[in-house]
């Protein structure tokens, strides 16, 4: 399975960055967008993201534009709805731009983050339980396998004369009904065998485990993150309003 925005190896600034730091940076961008209600700030942030994608992740402008095009219809709908329902042109524009601005960091993250390093980083840097990292690894291994299995089940039904090109909600439900049972049986069978296989390799023997692959945040990663945290608070207490900040983080304090 080849995904459009899947990881592509490289040596850009973002490629070298620790995935957990990158993940926190992405969260900061989302929070910033939460408290930005004027379209000019959102547009500024969007342009900054594109520049960061171009320079920091060595991504092409067309590549980023493709991602924006995918979300553009939804962004336009949100804008128009806000403009016509609330009657505020600037607010409506900001809402639409928000959706576009959140896409670019996501694309930068997915294109520059090695899934293997991400799972190690989540466990080693953000101290997630190692069981969590294992789950991500297993999902990464098994999703293409289950996709193949679903394909095989669908084909097996087609040759029995079952109409698998059913459209509409009823059609989809019928399709789901006949494929879900054999697929689930396959999933359960594989899960049981995998569970047996990993137990046989002493998985879960101790609360901790050794890591031969070590990932940690570098000095530059920390500086980058600190700069964004500071920028967030500067924006929040200057251009953003304290009430927006309060309503975003402490809705109960209104």
């Amino acid at each position, binding site marked *: 399975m*080849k995904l459009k925005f899947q990881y592509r190896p490289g040596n850009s600034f973002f490629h070298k960055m620790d995935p957990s730091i990158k993940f926190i940076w992405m969260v900061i961008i989302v929070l910033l967008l939460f408290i930005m209600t004027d379209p000019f700030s959102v547009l500024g942030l969007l342009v900054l993201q594109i520049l960061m994608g171009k320079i920091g992740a060595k991504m092409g402008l067309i590549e980023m534009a493709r991602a924006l095009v995918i979300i553009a219809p939804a962004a336009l709908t949100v804008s128009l709805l806000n403009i016509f329902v609330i009657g505020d042109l600037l607010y409506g524009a900001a809402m639409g731009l928000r959706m576009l601005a959140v896409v670019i960091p996501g694309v930068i993250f997915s294109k520059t983050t090695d*899934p*293997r390093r991400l799972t190690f980083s989540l466990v080693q840097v953000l101290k997630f339980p190692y069981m969590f990292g*294992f789950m991500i*690894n*297993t999902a*990464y*291994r098994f999703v*293409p*396998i289950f996709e193949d*299995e679903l394909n*095989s*089940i669908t*084909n*097996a*039904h*087609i*040759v*029995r*004369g*079952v109409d698998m090109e059913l459209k509409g909600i009823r059609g989809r439900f019928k399709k789901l009904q*006949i494929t879900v*049972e*054999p697929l689930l*049986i*396959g999933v359960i069978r*594989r899960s*049981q*065998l*995998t*569970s*047996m*296989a*990993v*137990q*046989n*390799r*002493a*998985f*879960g*023997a*101790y609360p*901790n*485990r*050794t*890591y*031969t*692959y070590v990932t940690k945040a570098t000095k530059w990663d920390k500086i980058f993150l600190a700069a964004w945290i500071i920028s967030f608070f500067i924006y929040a207490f200057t251009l953003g309003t304290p009430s927006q900040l309060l309503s975003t983080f402490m809705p109960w304090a209104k």
Partner: protein
Amino acid sequence: MIKVKDLTYWYPRMESPSLDRVNLEINDGEFVLILGASGSGKSTLLFSLNGILQHEIGGRIKGHIEVNGKNPTEKEVFDMATTISLVMQDPEVQLTQMTVFDEVVFGPENLLRPKEEVIQAAESALKFVGLYEKKDCIVNELSGGQKQRLAIAAALAMNTEIIAMDEPTAHLDPKGTNEVFQVIKKLKELKKTIILVEHKVDNVIELLEEDDRVVVLDNGKIILNGRPREIFAKHGRVMMDEFGLALPQIVELALRLGITPIPLHIGEVDCSKFDINPIASNRSGKNNIPIITVKDLEFSYGNGVVLNGVNFTIPKGLTTVIVGQNGSGKSTLLQNIIGLLKPTKGKILFNGVELNSLDKKSVFRDIGYVFQYPEHQFVTKTVKDEIEYGLKIRNLERSIIESRSREFLEMFGLEKTKDRHPLTLSMGEKRRLSFATMLILEPKVLIMDEPVIGQDRRRTQYLIKLIDKLKSQGITIIIATHDMNFLAQCADNVIVINEGKVIFQGDVVKLFNEKRILTAAGLDDPPVHKLATKLGCPEIVTVEQFCTCLAKQVVA
């Protein structure tokens, strides 16, 4: 040392035991081959040794097990994992990490071993199985044989004294199988205790030495336990006829011809004792009327070309077998033939008419397809409904449906299970049901994808008889398989696919004598053909033919 005493085990909700008063002792450094028909309890026995059965699966257990002084019923599975490693049948389920190196370090890391020690163990294990150069590769990108070698490397890195392997080559093509057996041969030299469950006896016999051991299970009981020569010589006939087991071809031949002492492999056969007459092959694609013609077929998934410039014909009323390595494009080709996939270029003619111009429903009526996993095909809640399903779709009269379904339930031995859910059947019953659901529709062509994977001799023989019967009714059969013995027994016409291209089309005899083709496609001719060739009769490809052609057996 392993000691199993009066071990009886019942799976959850089962009334009859899967292991029945099993007694077994295995010494340190011993190599033990476990044989048995499907469902005889081989895997269950292996799973009891590392505690998986007791702690993961549940059920009831009686008796005592001791593995290097540890009782797996009392010890935690991770504790047992430092003593015994298990390599399982399906390469896909036992590898959970993204890269080759991560997979091998996974076990020792879980045991909190020091980092340097883990790296050293992983590197030496990868070198041992010949995968060191691939250590940074993604596991999903490895071939089947490489994945099983990786599973063995992961077991080795755990540094356990005992390695148990449950049919590690069941899903592999001849090349992958050979790779794995080369590694097992090296493992034997390390003097580790090895317990191997395996159906591919012709490969495993090459590994066996005089002081190795063969244990035979039937219905959960150990019925034979001894040295290979003793077991095969004294009990070979019973193993074949009563327990439905495949014997190494050379052993089977010797038993059928009454040769003593029983040779275990070709190296032990005294060729001067035979005088055989050449025969004309009775299985060749003499029928030149094509039912399917493939012309300049190309097929790609995105940018990946799977089939490229494929040309061949399938003769009407004969059995055509398509062989090739895992990933060579066999299944893609079959799916193009039935119209599940659309060729990127070229065309497929069915009875002279382009397949794409035909109504899909009429194609599926004329061409039946039995998938590798029968459970994928079931759509109803009972066996009877499953058999009737295709007839109901065709709006046949109720009385006709009733009589046909009765006939097929009886023909495939499924009357007693007619009210059960298809998914609750045994593997053999599921396989029979999948054939019945297709054959009741009276197809003109029947396609089977890997029908003999993991099947014992009895089931394979049943399938061969069924194929002969269908052929006599004029049905054209197309089979994709890796199994060279099965191929030799049923193919009239063989197509070899390699890297998306047809590199051979002809009869079995011609294929087995084209070493260049066999090597290119990673295939291997069966031992009986190797022996016959040595004796000057390269047209003999099965044990049956060898026995028929024997003009004189010189008694020493």
